[in-house]
């Protein structure tokens, strides 16, 4: 009964305090929606990665098989038996294997099998015209018309048309197979066209086998056996649709065979040749719609188990769908990377959601402290208060889940539509299902929200009205974490872990397989930036009141600034009142600045990486024409013994490239294998490379890819050193140091030339760390030695031009295929073209990358939204709480304008300081931790190193959002202030 009355009281309180209830419900609902949306979004990103892998596999197979591009390749497991040598199967043995596959393996795939196709064929038989058809083949009956296997394939009839004739015996609708009737087969149209065989013709099939027979008990010997079969071709068939996924063997191949019914195979052929089957294929086409992110790992595991099981059954029986398994394995690896990255980038969002819920709950309970004290004074026990808040929390949590979970579909869809940071696809990617973890997290967030009100409520419930007054006296004191020095205690391990991180260089130690990196095994490492921000934010907030105090002291003597002084002194004296809002601001700005800068760094790094690889907008790999036209162009080979004239390549004049529409300027860049002659400390010389360039044009074209951190001095200056003398040579800085080189010193490179080699002497001009093309992200940076020299000098010393690439600056609107075509029409032999812009676009469209940027976008948007919302709630509740103070100040003679300045001063100063501290920490965090985020998988190339870029424009967005929120809060406050009647406020109660 008491519980019921308490429950009713709790509900009545919720109804009566609609504004507070709405704030709390809003906070909890947003937290639930975000908590639920993030796993759904991660799952959606994983799903896209999976589909992309399967699509890539299909594209690869289509390319290899020459199928039409629109062919749909099914998710298929193919097992094959390949009987090599004498491991041929008898018909009964095929039945045994077939039973094994059908009864044991197919059901274990778990995914629904939508089609099973079984195929069996013999070794090829020589096909000769039989007596009846002799008249049409008068020349030589000993020469076979061709070779073809006897085969059968299930469900063939639905996929072929008969050109002429009837189905062979044993097929549905055809005569039955008899023991003494003719052996009947059908052949494909292609075979018929090639050989002239028609339906109704008799053919003779011949095959010779070598078999080992026993001579006596101890010895065996090989003997030749010849088999002959007379068969009638009853039909000529053709495939209905050559691109149908049914064809597990391309129909062009099957058309060359002699197809017969399984019954004919068992009753007639098996009688003649006992062991005959050399190839069997079982194909299980699975329902790829049933392949989900959740069951991929199981499917791959089962495929592996099946493979082992099949091998144990028969060593020749193998799972040969390598492409698909490889695609799925690749997906699993990429998925693991994705989860790792998502964990790294979504963890801060959860941290902010958590602090948001705690903040709002704390603010709401703080508003109710006086009421709680009265309840306690009227006889309510702390347990009653606990129960009341538990009932309120449970109800709000339930409503938050009911609203927040459906809302999370929209939120997840928005995130899934992110194509890059803060940019969304016009065609939204709808998320239509939530993984189980979404619901769990939604419930957890709701429970957390409810629990967050319980802790401060319980604390408040300990006090009666007298205790409440005493507690208010202490409210000007420091929060608990400051009194306990928790901020400093937390900062110590963070500082140590950061130091360790700086030593290791990255979050994931080089050399480890990132797919094996489990963020949950070492959470500190992955959450380090967030933990550091938390500790630093707490520490900074310790000094914020002192800052306000200092500012208050500075303005205290300036009479017109009295309201500002009052606001600053109020902030200096009551840190506990705004600690939550301040921390939310600091954390959000810190994480948002860090996240936005990480996104910007990643974006720019992609561009840097591709331009480092390519050197410019476009790199054309061209070759010359050999002066020995019998040799293939550009491919080194041995000169003939009697060939006295040295071989060289003839190139079209490179100026011709300027005639190609879209190419603005070009430079030659020859990648030449070299050996360093007078270097004592040489690394793997097989990978050493000289890049010979047209210095002036190359420097202009590669300007976008020449970062100043690629050397100790700006790269423009380093490249210009090549202009100091024709034989100038740039070397890697490490090589320079290891070999004690000096600027101006001579250095000889043995050039591994086309068809010949020769030493060329250079003068060391300067050194670099990273250089486009040769020391790009794909280069074996750890082992090779790289040099850069002038192309003209190098070619002149070699006495001829060596093969070179053309690096070009192009018009952004130019079509690369058209440019390549134009180049070829001008006589250039282009064997490959690397277009930086399309590579960037392609990389940006990778699902993992989109997932990553979706997570960063999510973090940024959620944090901004939560902070703005949290801050607005704080400011409005704070205004409510200050209403009496404002009334007193008005009574004491503060004008309405001054009171407004006082209100604006409090909110403005708090926002400004919180935002500035948060931004400062975010910037520091970016410079400390962003470089360490580089080695987190194949998604991010290790070279060039991350160069932290601050996304000030995005940070400015938060400032705008905060300014808008502040404007709203101030407008609302001033509206309230205008309506505020000092005498009413004062009458409300004690300040």
């Amino acid at each position: 009964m008491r519980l019921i009355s308490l429950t009713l009281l709790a509900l009545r309180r919720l109804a009566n305090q609609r504004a507070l209830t709405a704030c709390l419900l809003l906070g909890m609902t947003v937290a639930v929606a975000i908590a639920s949306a993030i796993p759904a979004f991660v799952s959606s990103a994983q799903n896209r990665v999976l589909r992309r892998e399967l699509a890539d596999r299909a594209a690869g197979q289509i390319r290899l098989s020459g199928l039409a591009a629109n062919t749909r390749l099914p998710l298929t497991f193919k097992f094959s038996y390949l009987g090599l040598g004498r491991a041929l199967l008898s018909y009964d043995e095929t039945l045994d294997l077939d039973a094994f596959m059908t009864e044991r393996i197919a059901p274990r795939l778990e995914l629904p099998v939508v089609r099973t196709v079984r195929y069996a064929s013999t070794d090829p038989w020589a096909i000769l015209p039989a007596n009846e058809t002799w008249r049409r083949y008068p020349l030589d009956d000993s020469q076979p018309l061709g070779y073809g296997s006897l085969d059968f394939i299930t469900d063939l009839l639905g996929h072929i048309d008969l050109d002429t004739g009837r189905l062979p015996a044993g097929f549905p609708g055809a005569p039955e197979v008899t023991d003494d009737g003719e052996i009947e087969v059908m052949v494909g149209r292609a075979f018929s066209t090639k050989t002239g065989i028609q339906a109704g013709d008799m053919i003779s099939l011949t095959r010779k086998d070598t078999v080992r027979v026993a001579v006596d008990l101890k010895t065996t010997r090989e003997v030749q056996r010849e088999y002959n079969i007379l068969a009638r071709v009853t039909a000529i068939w053709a495939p209905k649709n050559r691109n149908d996924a049914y064809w597990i063997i391309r129909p062009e191949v099957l058309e060359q065979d002699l197809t017969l019914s399984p019954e004919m195979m068992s009753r007639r052929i098996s009688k003649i040749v006992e062991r005959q089957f050399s190839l069997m294929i079982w194909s299980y086409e699975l329902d790829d719609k049933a392949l989900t992110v959740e069951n991929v790992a199981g499917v791959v595991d089962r495929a592996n188990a099946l493979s082992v099981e099949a091998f144990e059954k028969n060593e020749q029986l193998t799972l040969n769908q390598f492409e698909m398994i490889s695609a799925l394995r690749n997906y699993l690896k990429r998925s693991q990377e994705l989860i790792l990255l998502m964990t790294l980038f979504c963890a801060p969002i959860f941290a902010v959601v958590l602090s948001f819920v705690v903040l709002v709950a704390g603010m709401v309970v703080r508003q109710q402290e006086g009421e709680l004290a009265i309840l306690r004074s009227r006889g309510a026990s702390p347990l009653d208060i606990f129960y009341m808040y538990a009932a309120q929390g449970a109800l709000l949590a339930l409503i938050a889940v009911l609203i927040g979970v459906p809302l999370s579909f929209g939120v997840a869809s928005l995130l899934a539509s992110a194509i890059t940071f803060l940019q969304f696809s016009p065609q939204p990617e709808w998320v239509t299902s939530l993984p189980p973890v979404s619901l769990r997290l939604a419930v957890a967030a709701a429970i957390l929200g409810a629990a967050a009100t319980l802790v401060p409520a319980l604390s408040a419930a300990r006090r009666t009205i007298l205790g409440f007054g005493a507690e208010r006296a202490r409210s000007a004191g420091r929060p608990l974490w400051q009194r306990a020095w928790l901020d400093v205690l937390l900062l110590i391990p963070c500082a140590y872990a950061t130091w360790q991180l700086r030593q290791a260089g990255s979050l994931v130690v080089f050399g480890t397989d990132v797919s094996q990196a489990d963020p949950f095994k070492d959470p500190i490492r992955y959450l380090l930036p967030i933990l550091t921000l938390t500790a630093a934010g707490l520490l900074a907030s310790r000094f914020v009141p002192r800052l306000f105090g200092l500012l208050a002291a500075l303005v205290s003597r300036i009479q017109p600034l009295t309201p500002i002084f009052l606001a600053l002194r109020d902030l200096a004296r009551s840190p506990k009142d705004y600690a939550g809002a301040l921390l939310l601001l600091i954390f959000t700005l810190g994480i948002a600045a860090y996240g936005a800068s990480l996104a910007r760094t990643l974006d720019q790094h992609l561009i840097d990486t591709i331009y480092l690889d390519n050197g410019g907008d476009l790199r054309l790999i061209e070759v010359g024409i050999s002066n020995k036209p019998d040799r293939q162009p550009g491919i080194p080979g041995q000169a003939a013994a009697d060939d006295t004239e040295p071989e060289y390549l003839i190139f079209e004049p490179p100026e011709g490239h300027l005639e190609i529409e879209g190419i603005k300027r070009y430079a030659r860049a020859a990648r030449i294998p070299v050996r360093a002659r007078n270097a004592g400390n040489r690394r793997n010389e097989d990978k050493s490379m000289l890049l010979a360039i047209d210095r002036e044009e190359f420097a202009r074209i590669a300007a976008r890819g020449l970062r100043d951190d690629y050397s100790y001095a700006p790269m423009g200056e380093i490249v210009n050193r090549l202009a100091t003398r024709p034989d100038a040579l740039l070397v890697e800085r490490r090589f320079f140091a290891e070999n004690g080189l000096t600027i101006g010193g001579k250095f000889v490179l043995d050039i591994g030339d086309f068809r010949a080699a020769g030493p060329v002497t250079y003068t060391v001009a300067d050194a670099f760390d990273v250089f486009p093309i040769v020391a790009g992200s794909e280069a074996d940076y750890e082992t090779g030695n790289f040099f850069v020299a002038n192309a003209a000098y190098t070619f002149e010393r070699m006495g001829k031009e060596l093969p070179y690439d053309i690096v070009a600056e192009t018009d952004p609107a130019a079509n690369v295929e058209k440019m390549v075509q134009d180049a070829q029409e001008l006589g250039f032999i282009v064997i490959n073209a690397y277009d930086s812009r399309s590579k960037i676009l392609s990389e940006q469209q990778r699902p993992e990358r989109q997932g990553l940027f979706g997570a960063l976008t999510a973090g940024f948007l959620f944090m901004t939204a939560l902070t703005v919302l949290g801050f607005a709630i704080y400011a409005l509740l704070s205004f409510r709480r200050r209403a009496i103070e404002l009334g007193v100040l008005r009574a004491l003679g503060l004008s309405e304008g001054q009171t407004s300045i006082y209100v604006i001063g409090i909110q403005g100063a708090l926002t400004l300081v919180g935002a500035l501290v948060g931004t400062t920490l975010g910037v520091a965090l970016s410079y400390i931790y962003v470089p360490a985020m580089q080695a987190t998988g194949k998604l991010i190339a290790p070279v060039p190193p991350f160069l932290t870029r601050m996304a000030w424009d995005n940070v400015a967005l938060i400032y705008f959002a905060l300014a808008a929120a502040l404007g709203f809060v101030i407008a609302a406050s001033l509206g309230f202030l205008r309506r505020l009647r000092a005498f009413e406020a004062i009458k409300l109660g004690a300040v």
Partner: protein
Amino acid sequence: MSIAVETRAIERAYGSVRALRGVTLSVPEGMWLGVKGRSGSGKTTLLNCIGGIDRPTAGTVACFGRDIVGMSDLELTRWRRTEVGFVFQAFALMPTLSAYENVELPMRIAGARSRRGRAMECLDLVGLTKWADHRPPEMSGGQQQRVAIARALANRPKLLLADEPTGELDTTTSKDILALLRRIVTAEGITLLMSSHDPLALSYVDTVVEMRDGEIVSGLPLGPLTAGG
């Protein structure tokens, strides 16, 4: 003797509720006038209208010869800064400020240059010099009300309005506060209007008027009263 406060038929209505119904009152300078009546009788509304933190719906209020009803909000605010001091039932001290800072606050708002001496003088007057650095929540109710009185006196107002100043205090403390107010009225020559329904409090005043349903129903002197009577 000049008139400190003069109201003519003032009315104050909050929607359909008429809190004051044509109150006419004349209070000479240096008088301590008690306004008694039950809750809701209109005592506080009358003081608020006289103190310029509420405006009557009709009628006039003149303090020391100045009509305050016709003042703009800004003029009224400026007038309040120097001419009137308030003592509230719930003390209404700023919790983040020390006793000294609370007393100094009206002077700061009024733009006074030398504040420290006057603030300490006021604190000394109420006997709280030693508590100057303490914040209100650290003080007893009586001490807080003394700080409130010191604050009300800081700008040397000619008029002090006290709304149930002993309403939240025990009898002993109330006596201390009332004795203090008596001393102040006598020593500083301040005119004090105090609302209360406490007989003890009313025993300290010069004269008492009783209000009921927004009207003065007894002890109403239409002509000037003699201060200190």
